[in-house]
């Protein structure tokens, strides 16, 4: 257990605003970046990360053991952990939670993460209610057996979907459990006025003594980001959940007093253009490479006020496996033109570029459009609501090109594999899937499976390198044109305390609620 921040004071209340409604807080279901970290504060999983980092550490598990073949994980549970309803958490709860999330009746969007557990197929197919691979050894020991070695499994035990829920409460509220979350987390739900506000209250019984610092967090919903910023400047809000609105970014950064309260950090995110590898002319790798070379990434980064860094590969820099040495495709219009000529399109061609309709994505798309026009590709922009873009991408001949911004991949967990499976692997290249490039390279799929079977933590380096190679191969085929990795800029009120990294925590967005504190309590 890490030490508590000596400067931290306990008490106080903070206010955080969001524009959109908070969807369910059921850990098995919630999958927005917005409720993601709220759930993390209400519930706990067996595993977690060091605050502000991507380093795994046990949480509800006191310790764990991995069998040499990498297929059996045994978790020893922490004692004395209580749910918000006062009952002590046991191994049965862990099993119940895993059975529940994989049960199709739960309709969890994260069920697929548990596919490596023995018996998953039976549960997913409705043949069984219980995962045969999860066994309760004793009240404080859970054994999980996998059908194949899975290097990401500890990460899977850290994502929200595996967080532990109490059976009796789930049964009591049924489908409404997400509105009445009861977990073991640092905070418990005090009030939820639909469409207006949620209030989290400090869980005095929290197993991690001394945490959390703040007594009460109020999330105000339905607030325009610009107004949230005004309120922040007025001292009414502590953290604007949606960040600094693009329209105000320069204004804020121009004011030293405000700039001082902005924390910048990396994000496990990549913005990219997908090219449908099964639609001509993008079935030709030269065309895709040409597109990669045609895009002026520096200018696009400038357009979004330098809130990103240009990217040349799928993985973001803070992800293991990121290859610093990788050169990618440099911006080179002449070469791009030449490639197009080689591909048989010296005059270019007409195509479509899909984009989600919220600022700044249409702007970025227009910049890309202009870059493509320079090499003769006339891309008509289709700026649509998120759901429509996703639908088009999941259709085989639906979208030749998609700018991923706004819907882009933010990693579920900090592991290179997370950027591959559904979005670049063959499994995603299906009707309704998320592999919008429809890129399917069997060989790479096998390689990925091999990489993921390297479970031994000691071989992490090796595994990361393997993944690096996979992504380099991907880039050779160029189904994507990576454009930038977004930087996160979180702003806070002067009273907020705690390490800066808590404000750009890669898994807790916007901030790590459990560890931040306010300075103005006595």
């Amino acid at each position, binding site marked *: 257990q890490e030490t508590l921040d000596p400067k931290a004071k306990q008490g106080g209340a903070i206010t955080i605003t969001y524009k959109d409604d908070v969807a369910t807080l059921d850990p098995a279901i919630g999958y927005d970046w917005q409720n993601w970290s709220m759930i993390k504060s209400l519930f706990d999983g067996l595993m977690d990360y060091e605050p502000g980092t991507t380093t795994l550490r046990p949480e509800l598990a006191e310790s764990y053991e991995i069998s040499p073949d990498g297929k059996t994980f045994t978790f020893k549970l922490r004692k004395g952990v209580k749910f918000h309803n006062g009952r002590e958490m046991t191994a049965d709860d862990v099993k119940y939670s895993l059975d529940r999330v994989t049960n199709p009746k739960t309709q969890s969007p994260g069920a697929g993460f548990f596919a490596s557990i023995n018996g998953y197929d039976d549960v997913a197919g409705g043949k069984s209610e219980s995962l045969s691979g999860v066994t309760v050894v004793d009240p404080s020991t859970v054994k999980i057996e996998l059908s194949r070695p899975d290097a990401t499994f500890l990460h899977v035990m850290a994502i929200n979907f595996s967080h532990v829920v109490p059976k009796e409460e789930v049964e009591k509220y049924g489908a409404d459990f997400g509105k009445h979350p009861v977990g073991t987390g640092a905070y418990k739900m005090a009030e939820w006025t639909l469409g207006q506000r949620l209030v989290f209250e400090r869980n005095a019984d929290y197993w991690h003594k001394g945490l959390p610092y703040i007594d009460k967090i109020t999330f105000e919903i339905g607030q325009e980001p*610009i107004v949230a910023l005004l309120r922040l400047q007025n001292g009414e809000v502590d953290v604007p959940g949606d960040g600094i*609105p*693009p*329209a*105000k970014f*320069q*204004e804020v950064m121009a004011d030293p007093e405000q700039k001082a309260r902005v924390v910048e950090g990396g994000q496990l995110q990549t913005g990219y253009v997908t090219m449908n590898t099964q639609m001509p002319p993008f079935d030709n790798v030269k065309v895709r490479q040409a597109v990669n070379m045609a895009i002026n990434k520096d*200018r696009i980064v*400038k*357009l*979004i*006020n*330098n809130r990103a860094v240009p990217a040349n590969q799928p993985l973001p820099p803070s992800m293991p496996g990121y290859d610093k040495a990788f050169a990618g495709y440099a911006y080179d219009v002449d070469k791009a033109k030449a490639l197009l000529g080689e591909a048989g399109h010296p005059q270019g061609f007409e195509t479509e570029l899909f984009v989600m*309709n919220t*600022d*700044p994505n*249409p*702007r970025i*798309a*227009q*910049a890309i*459009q*202009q870059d493509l026009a320079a090499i003769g590709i006339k891309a*008509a*922009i*289709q*700026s*649509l*609501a998120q759901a*429509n873009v996703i639908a088009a991408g999941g259709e085989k001949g639906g979208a030749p090109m998609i700018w991923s911004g706004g819907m882009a991949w933010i990693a579920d967990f900090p592991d290179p594999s997370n950027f591959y499976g559904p979005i670049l692997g063959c499994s995603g290249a299906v009707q309704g899937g998320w592999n919008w490039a429809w890129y399917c390279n069997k060989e790479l799929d096998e390689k990925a499976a091999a990489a993921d079977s390297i479970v031994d933590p000691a071989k992490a380096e090796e595994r990361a390198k393997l993944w690096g190679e996979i992504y380099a191969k991907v880039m050779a085929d160029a189904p994507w044109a990576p454009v930038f990795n977004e930087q996160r800029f979180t702003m806070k009120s002067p009273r907020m305390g705690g390490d800066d990294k808590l404000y750009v925590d890669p898994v807790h967005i916007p901030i790590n609620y459990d560890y931040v504190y306010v300075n103005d309590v006595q």
Partner: protein
Amino acid sequence: MTSPIAPEVSAITVPARPRAGVWRRLVRRPLALTGLVIIALTVAGAVLAPYLTGYDPNEQMFDGLTLEGAPLPPSATFWLGTDLLGRDLLTRILHGARTSLIIGIVANGAALLIGTLVGITAGYFRGFVGAALMRFTDLMMAFPALLLAICLAAVFQPSLWIVAMVIALVNWVQTARIVFTETSSLAEREFIDAERTIGAGTLRILFRHILPHLLPTIIVWGTLGISTTVLLEATLSYLGIGVQPPTASWGNIIFENQTYFQAAPWLVFFPGAAILALALAFNLVGDALRDILDPTQRGRA
């Protein structure tokens, strides 16, 4: 009992009709003339847009942005400034006039036409026809416009004409409602009874006698409708139906940039002013037209 009492009328000389044409009388009014000039300028601007400025509306110029990526305020090079992508705003507004004129005038006009026809018919006919038409109007009104737009967008290729069609389909209902209420009041006036007794057909009563009384209302809705439809087009385009970027329209220039109105006010102000000017111009002409067509207002300075 045959004493000549009438004013001295010599022979029946039918006077040559001294009706100055509506157009001529319109042009004689300074305000109406101003309106006409603004409309003409807008149309000319839209038609001649490619020849009026040295820029391409979609060209994102490198020197159109500051180094931090901020748009430039109006200057000698960019008369109305540049937008967030470094494009010349004046050029975009001129080109945007094409879209906006089609929406504000054609689509809005079509909506007005349908609305008036439905409203007047429903208001005049008692019984089944009227009730059925009005209930249909209610149905259309109760039906969410945005949803219709999204579905159409999903089915068709988004285009200006689709958005124009949607706007016409959606906007006629309000006009119909208002016209309905007024017509049902007018239909009870005695002069309508009088028209019936001389055998005037329904069409005649509707279009020669009721319609002129609705003119003020129609003008109000028509002119105000210009602004709202131009702005509505932006919303619909945003949802993916209608013109897609980088095609400019006044509505979507505003819509794209409205959050920046403090940082770059020109991006909202100029297209807004263009919409306002167009709507005002039509209103000036409409008002004058109404005065001209309304005999009881004669003699007004």
